[in-house]
C-alpha cells in the first residue's frame, strides 16, 4: 500500500515531458471544474477519525500507548490537505490502528459507529486513484457518498420495518421508552434519582408511537438524499436531530455520523447552484435509488431492527483491591474497549438463561411483545424459562478471564504513575461511573463479576436476579 501511494505521488509530482499524469492527483485538478472545495470535507472526516483514535485511552491489554502511531495518524490527517493521495494512506493506517481492538475476538468489538466514515474515505481513495485516467467531478464523489450515507440510514429503517411480522409493527408496537429505562439501568443519566426517572419514562410512554414514526421517516428518508437539495438538507438535519434524541434517551452518541451529515449540509449550503446543476438531477436521483436498493449487503451492513423490552440481563464488574475494599468498576475504565463493555454481551460467562440483548433489546416481535405485556414477576419468569437460552461457554469465559487478568494486571502497574493523560474524544456509548466507583488508587487483587436480571413493570425496576458468577484473581 505504501509503495502504491508513493508511486501515485511520484506520478503526480514528477515533471517529465512524457508524464501525462503530472498534476492529476492534486486537489487543484480535482476541484478545478466545479469549484467545490471538497478537500475540506475529506479533511474533516480524516480529522474526526484522527481525533477519535489518536486520543484513545492507553491500551492496558497490550500495555502500549502507541504514541508514535497516534502522532503519525494526526500528521497523515493534516497531509490530506496537501495531497488527496494521503487520504488513502490515512484510512488504511487508521483501519490498522482500530483493528487492534478486534482482539480478543470474543469481545465482538463494534465498528458500527465509525465504519461509515471509513467507507467514505475509502470511496474517496478509489475516486482519487482513478483520477489518473478518468476525469471525475467532486459531485460524482458526493453523489456516491450520499448513496453510502443513505444506504446506512435506509437499511436501518428497513430492518425496523421487517423486524415485526407486519411493516407497521415496529412503529406502532415498539416501546422506545423501555430503552430509556434500560439505559438508566446500564449507567446513563444516573445522576437523576430513580422516582424522577421513572416519572419521565412514564411520560415518554405517550410519545412512543410519534418518536418511532419520526425515526422511521428520517431513516427511510436515506433513500431520498439525492432527490433534491432542500429535501436532502431536511433529511440530513432530521437524522442529526434523531442522533441527538438517541443520545439524550440512551447515551449512545453517533457524533461521527453527525459530523459527516453536517459536512454534506455545509457543501449544499455553500455551493447551491453547483450542486443543483450537477448533483441534484433527475438522473442522479433515480440512479441513487437503484444503487442504494440494489446495493444492500454491499454498501450497508446495518441491522438495527429490534424491539425494546422491559427486561435486562447484564453484568456488573467489581474491584476487590489490596485493602479488601469492594467497589464497582465503571464501564469506562475498560476503555479503549469501552464499546464491548458498554454493550455488555458477555453471555458466555454463566449458564443462566439469557432472554434479552444489549439494553433489553429482542429481535423477535412475539417474544418482545409478550415480555412487554407481562405485568407480574411470575409472568416474566415463566416467559424467561420458555424463551430464554443459555450461551455459556467455559472456553470463551477462560479467554475472557485472560483478557481481564492481562488488562487489570497491567493497569495495576501504573497505579501512582498513570500513562500520559490524553483528553479523549467522546465515547460512542456513555455509561456514567457510580459515585463510589474504583478510581485506580489501589491495585486490584480480584475482579468480581455479578450477573443481574431486572424487570421494569411500568412503575418500578425489580431486580429478579443478582449473583456473583465469576471471580478473576489478578496475578
Amino acid at each position, binding site marked *: *500500500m505504501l509503495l502504491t501511494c508513493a508511486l501515485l505521488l511520484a506520478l503526480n509530482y514528477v515533471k517529465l515531458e512524457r508524464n501525462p499524469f503530472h498534476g492529476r492527483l492534486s486537489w487543484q485538478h480535482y476541484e478545478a471544474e466545479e469549484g467545490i472545495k471538497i478537500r475540506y470535507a475529506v479533511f474533516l472526516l480524516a480529522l474526526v477519525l484522527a481525533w477519535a483514535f489518536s486520543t484513545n485511552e492507553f491500551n492496558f491489554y497490550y500495555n502500549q500507548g502507541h504514541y508514535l502511531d497516534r502522532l503519525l495518524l494526526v500528521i497523515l490527517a493534516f497531509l490530506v490537505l496537501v495531497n488527496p493521495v494521503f487520504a488513502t494512506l490515512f*484510512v*488504511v493506517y487508521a*483501519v*490498522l490502528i482500530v*483493528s487492534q481492538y*478486534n482482539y480478543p475476538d470474543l469481545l465482538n468489538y463494534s465498528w458500527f459507529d465509525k465504519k461509515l466514515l*471509513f*467507507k467514505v474515505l*475509502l*470511496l474517496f*481513495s*478509489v*475516486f482519487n486513484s*482513478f483520477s489518473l485516467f*478518468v476525469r*471525475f467531478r467532486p459531485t*460524482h464523489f458526493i*453523489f*456516491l457518498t450520499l448513496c453510502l450515507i443513505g444506504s446506512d440510514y435506509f437499511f436501518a429503517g428497513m430492518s425496523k420495518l421487517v423486524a415485526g411480522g407486519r411493516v407497521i409493527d415496529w412503529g406502532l408496537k415498539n416501546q422506545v421508552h423501555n430503552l430509556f429505562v434500560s439505559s438508566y439501568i446500564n449507567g446513563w443519566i444516573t445522576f437523576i434519582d430513580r422516582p424522577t426517572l421513572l416519572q419521565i419514562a412514564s411520560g415518554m410512554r405517550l410519545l412512543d408511537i410519534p418518536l418511532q414514526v419520526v425515526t422511521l421517516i428520517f431513516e427511510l428518508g436515506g433513500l431520498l438524499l439525492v432527490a433534491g437539495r432542500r429535501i436532502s438538507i431536511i433529511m440530513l438535519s432530521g437524522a442529526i436531530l434523531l442522533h441527538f434524541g438517541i443520545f439524550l434517551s440512551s447515551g449512545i452518541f453517533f457524533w461521527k455520523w453527525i459530523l459527516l451529515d453536517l459536512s454534506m449540509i455545509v457543501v449544499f449550503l455553500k455551493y447551491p447552484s453547483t450542486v443543483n446543476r450537477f448533483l441534484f438531477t433527475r*438522473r442522479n436521483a433515480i*440512479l441513487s435509488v437503484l*444503487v442504494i436498493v440494489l*446495493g444492500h449487503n*454491499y454498501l450497508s451492513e446495518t441491522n438495527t431492527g429490534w424491539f425494546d423490552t422491559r427486561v435486562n440481563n447484564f453484568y456488573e464488574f467489581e474491584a476487590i483491591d489490596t485493602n479488601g475494599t469492594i467497589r464497582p468498576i465503571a464501564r469506562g475504565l475498560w476503555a479503549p474497549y469501552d464499546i464491548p463493555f458498554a454493550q455488555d454481551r458477555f453471555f458466555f460467562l454463566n449458564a443462566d438463561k439469557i432472554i434479552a440483548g444489549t439494553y433489553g433489546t429482542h429481535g423477535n416481535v412475539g417474544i418482545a411483545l409478550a415480555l412487554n405485556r407481562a405485568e407480574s414477576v411470575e409472568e416474566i419468569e415463566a416467559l424467561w424459562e420458555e424463551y430464554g437460552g443459555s450461551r455459556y461457554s467455559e472456553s470463551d469465559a477462560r479467554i475472557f478471564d485472560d483478557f481481564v487478568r492481562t488488562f487489570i494486571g497491567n493497569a495495576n502497574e501504573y497505579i501512582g504513575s498513570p500513562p500520559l493523560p490524553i483528553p479523549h474524544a467522546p465515547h460512542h456509548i456513555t455509561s456514567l461511573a457510580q459515585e463510589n466507583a474504583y478510581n485506580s488508587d489501589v491495585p486490584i487483587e480480584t475482579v468480581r463479576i455479578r450477573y443481574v436480571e431486572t424487570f421494569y413493570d411500568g412503575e418500578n425496576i425489580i431486580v429478579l436476579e443478582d449473583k456473583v458468577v465469576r471471580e478473576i484473581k489478578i496475578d
Partner: protein
Amino acid sequence: MNQSLASNPKQNWRQLAHTLELGFYLKIILILVTYYFFSDFVFDTIPLD
C-alpha cells in the same frame, strides 16, 4: 437521418453514448466495483497480515 447513420456510424454511436450519458454510468460502475474489492481488502485482509 438513416442515411447519415449509415454514412458515419462511429460518430453516431458516440453521439448516442453521449446522449445516454454512458460515460457517467460506466464511471459509477467502475468506482462501485473497485470500491467493493478495495474495502474488502482494507477491512478484512490488511488487519490480518
